[in-house]
């Protein structure tokens, strides 16, 4: 039985590979053509979480999800590069079946095709596992010149998936990009680091992670939403990607999440009498020992 499933996976994999090879030949004829893999995460909507009043613990069970804000910028940048340099934008997501929703949105915004990895992905997968899966997808696609991600995700914000993918594929990474310029063989970015704006280049293929200031993401139009329904969303399982569970079982687990303590006094001073409010405030702050 297990063999049967394995064989089934293998035949789908072969089919996929030949499909990709076809595209590859096409790419050889037109060298400007490049595939841009944009990674989009379905994050929790951080403003609608449920907190248990008595314990202060946060539960994600049934919480609404949405496209990670930074990935809108990543997608926008991918589309802009395609508009200038040609190629295809492939939106990729890892997670439960529901990630299809963010891919539909990505297609409506302007991605050409979409792919998600779902079957067999542990519910408590960590960033290492996600990076492993995305690296395998990159290798399978075989013609990706650029991988674009966000600087982090709004829920877990670990900022590690981009550089992990780069490391696992032996690719250079331009992180925290505030602007990106792509030519035939290389990519140049202005990296927004604490110490300044670093103008850095590297050869393609490469990984780029973007900050929010890089662009203003476009919104889908009615036409693009209708057009998107015709676009393809592929699904792959871990076994189809040849991924072993040891590489995706978590090495980091979350024990609990509680909402931060809020012990603020919340005193309101009426500012319509500015002098009075100010001197009252000054004397309070002196009592607190902070002035």
């Amino acid at each position, binding site marked *: 039985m297990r063999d049967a499933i394995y064989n089934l996976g293998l035949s789908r994999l072969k089919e996929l590979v030949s499909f990709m090879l076809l595209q590859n030949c096409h790419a050889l004829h037109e060298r400007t053509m490049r595939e841009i893999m944009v990674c989009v995460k379905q994050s929790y909507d*951080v*403003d609608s*979480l449920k907190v248990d009043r008595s314990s202060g613990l946060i539960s994600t069970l049934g919480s609404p999800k949405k496209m990670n804000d930074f990935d809108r910028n990543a997608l926008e940048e991918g589309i802009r590069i395609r508009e200038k340099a040609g190629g295809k934008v492939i939106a990729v997501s890892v997670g439960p079946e529901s990630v299809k929703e963010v891919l539909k949105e990505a297609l409506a915004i302007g991605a050409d095709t979409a792919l998600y990895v779902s079957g067999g992905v542990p519910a408590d997968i960590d960033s*290492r596992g996600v990076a492993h899966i995305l690296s395998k997808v990159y290798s399978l696609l075989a013609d990706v010149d650029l991988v674009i991600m966000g600087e*982090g995700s*709004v*829920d877990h*914000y*670990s*900022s*590690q998936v*981009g*550089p*992990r993918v*780069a*490391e*696992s594929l032996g690719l*250079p*990474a*331009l*992180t925290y990009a505030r602007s990106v310029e792509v030519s035939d063989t290389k990519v140049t970015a*202005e*990296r*927004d*680091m604490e*110490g300044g*704006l*670093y*103008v*850095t280049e*590297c050869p393609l293929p490469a990984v780029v992670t973007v900050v*929010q*200031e890089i662009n203003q993401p476009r919104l889908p139009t009615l036409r693009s939403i209708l057009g998107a329904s015709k676009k393809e969303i592929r699904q792959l399982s871990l076994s189809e990607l040849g991924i072993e569970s040891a590489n995706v079982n*978590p*090495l*980091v*687990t979350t*024990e609990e*999440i509680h909402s*931060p303590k*809020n012990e*603020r006094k919340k*005193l309101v*001073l009426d*500012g319509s009498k*500015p*002098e*009075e*409010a*100010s*001197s*009252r*405030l*000054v004397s*309070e*702050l*002196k009592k*607190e020992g*902070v*002035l």
Partner: protein
Amino acid sequence: MSEFSVICFAESKSQLLELASYASKLSQGGPAQVIAILPAGTQAASEAEELFSYGATKVNVLETDCVTKAHADCLANHLSILAGPSQPLILLSSTKFGKEVGARLAQKLDAPLATECRALNLTEEGVVVERMVFSGNGISKERLLRLPAVVAIQPGAFTPERKNAVAGSVSSSKLECASKLITKEIKPKGTGSVKLENAERIVAIGRGLQKKEDLAIINELAGSIGAAVGCSRPVAADLGWLPDDRWIGLSGHKVSPKLYIAIGISGQVQHIAGMRDSKVVVAINKDSGAPIAQNSDYLVVGDLYVIVPALTKAIRTGGSGA
């Protein structure tokens, strides 16, 4: 947990002191060594001495331009060689560069990594960290299941403690940059004078300010109490009125001053994420319903253009008339 060593790396000496000090507290009583990797500089010799008095047992002075150019691939490779088969705990500072080095290093070592940590404990079952999640709406406790492990700690999360200096060994190494990146130029961003993480008082301004020139009244208030000036993300990132190193929040600096005065800042969760640990929070906002109301000790409801000058005056005159 049994015998293991801690390797610390940070771009700046002050961050490295925090890490070494933190590491030495973790391994108290144990035989573990604390190895600090110090980027070479003119002060390296005295900085190494200082590291010993904050808990380091070995200092390796590293000569490389990977750090100044922010080339993480090459540096991560070097650190992975230093880590060798010894399965250490590696502590980095959770700056943008630190997180990137950490991710590459963890990938190389097939190790767990936790970034943006505010606390770290060693337990029988592993390394347990505390970090911010959900854009600051939650604090999570996460367990790293095996060593080697990489942990990036928020700068300023821990105040280094001086110990009796124990003389340690100093070695030096040189790393030729073999990165695939070529950095052509580093454009300085204007930087403020005081580091926000170290400021005792911070006056922070948001989009309630109408034009850049009006920063004058903010600077005056800050001057009257010896405060550093910070801001919300849009003031730096979109408007460019203050340099980038002034913005506080989830994607900016995490600060914990004694006094934080938020002026014309609505108090969205991403901003709160950067200043939640402040001791006393004052807000000045014309909207009593702004979310900052829930996150402040004192909210003065009014027009900042009226309140700020009045407050500056009250401070200068010593608040008499209270």
